[in-house]
């Protein structure tokens, strides 16, 4: 089924490239003295590319927000609060045991529901909490004169940086888990192919399977 429109796919690809550049340049600034590691690049170059990439990311993020509203894609992120914890539990159990017992996916992908409850929660946290915090704290790092000088006796710049790198670390962890969970499709490459072609390769459904969402 055609699940990922071109706009979403282009944004997703751009976002992925930008995030990877930001992670590499960010780590390079943080661990600048470990220049012997392959992924550490020169500090000055890291600052320059981190800033340029960050500005593109902000534009891309604004595009994502508008696209979500205009295209109706936002509905896929809506969390069912009534059964949130039981749904999260079902999905989690599936990942840690169900899938090894041959159970079917508790929340199969459909045109109405692209993401399972765990995906929805993490995507919402990353896109609507993590990224705004990273962007705002990033502006604080880029323009130190706008950050508070002291908060409860601690430098505002330090707090801003700690917030920035903590959120960046969480995004990095998310990225690793996200890439890994993308190998959990019908075949390890199915979901990656889907984000390139736009077509989702559905799981083979047994006739007796009933989706818990229904």
């Amino acid at each position, binding site marked *: 089924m055609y699940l990922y429109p071109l706009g979403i796919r282009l944004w997703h690809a751009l976002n992925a490239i930008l995030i990877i550049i930001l992670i590499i340049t960010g780590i390079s600034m943080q661990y600048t003295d470990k220049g012997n590691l392959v992924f550490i690049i020169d500090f000055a170059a890291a600052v320059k590319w981190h800033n340029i990439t960050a500005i593109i990311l902000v534009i891309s993020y604004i595009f994502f927000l508008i696209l979500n509203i205009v295209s109706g894609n936002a509905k896929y992120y*809506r969390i069912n609060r009534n059964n949130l914890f039981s749904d999260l539990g079902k999905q989690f159990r599936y990942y840690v045991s169900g*899938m090894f017992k*041959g159970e079917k996916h508790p929340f199969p992908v459909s045109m109405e529901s692209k993401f399972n409850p765990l995906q929805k929660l993490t995507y919402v946290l990353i896109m609507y909490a993590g990224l705004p915090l990273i962007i*705002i704290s990033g502006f604080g790092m880029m323009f130190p004169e706008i950050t508070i000088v002291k908060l409860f006796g601690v430098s*505002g710049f330090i707090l801003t940086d700690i917030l920035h790198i903590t959120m960046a670390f969480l995004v990095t962890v998310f990225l690793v888990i996200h890439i*890994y969970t993308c190998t959990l499709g019908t075949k390890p490459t199915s979901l990656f192919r889907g984000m390139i072609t736009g077509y989702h390769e559905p799981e083979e459904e047994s006739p007796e399977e009933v989706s818990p969402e229904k």
Partner: protein
Amino acid sequence: MKMLFAGVLVAAAFGFYTEARALSGRADSDPGTADTLAFVSPFMEDNERCFKCHGQGKYEYENELLGTTVKALMCPDRIIRREDFYISNHRSFSCTDCHSSDYVVFPHPGELRMELKFNCLDCHGGDETYSIFSFEMIEEDYMESVHYKLEDEGFSCWKCHDPHTYRISMRDSKNLKETILYDNNICLYCHSDYTRFQILSDREEVNFLKTHDWLPNQASHFRSVRCIECHTQISDSILVSHLVLPKDRAVKLCNECHSKNSLLMASLYKFQSMEQRRGGFLNGIIMNESYVIGANRNAYLGTLSLAIFGVVILAIVIHVIFRIKTKANLKKG
């Protein structure tokens, strides 16, 4: 969802305000204010004979020949403000300790302008009282510096350290930002005033903002470090290096400072660097006044992040192993 978004915005806004409040306290913390009130020079009356004319921009005297009172402007280089002198390191001196006692005569005899001026080492050299300042080593440093080459043009200690107003800043520093400003102003006194600069050099005017335009967050750097951090060769023996380097040898690599082994610990923070870590931050003493990306990593956060990352990778590896096993079992039927 709306609640969540509002919460995020509130949390994000929490970290950002303008810096007006912190700047407002500067005047109160000026160490000079307290010193001026507390210190009364034993030579105050004697010195007042000089300050009467040299203590401000305007002076007046009686022209006895014409029987008139003459009002005139004092040459800016001859003005010594009382409030600066009496907080300086030489505040306990009488003017005539260093200048000829013939200066008490007015009009001053013309030949006094040719008097030989003392140099730092004339008083401070070879004296145990001042040994902690290592004046002899400072002189050695200075004699290797680019400034020494200008001695024939008139360069001397006084070009940077006006004996009337100079006060030790780094050893007495209660507010490092003020010390940085004070020390940088010593450099900028000539390097941002081309007229003054021309007295010593025939070079064309240099706009130091332009020559430093490669520096990201330029204003932040100028506020947080001294010129000499990059423009002098660090000395292990003296607190403040006086070996000013040619411009092509100035530090231009970011990670000289932005690293675990930040050179700031051997220069700007040398005096305070007894404390190596503060709250788990590398080079924590820097964080009393500044925050240097790359030099102020938090060791605890670093360890915690590595641990979390390790757990994630381990979980993925275990998951992969189970997937492979499951697949193998399915194949076996």
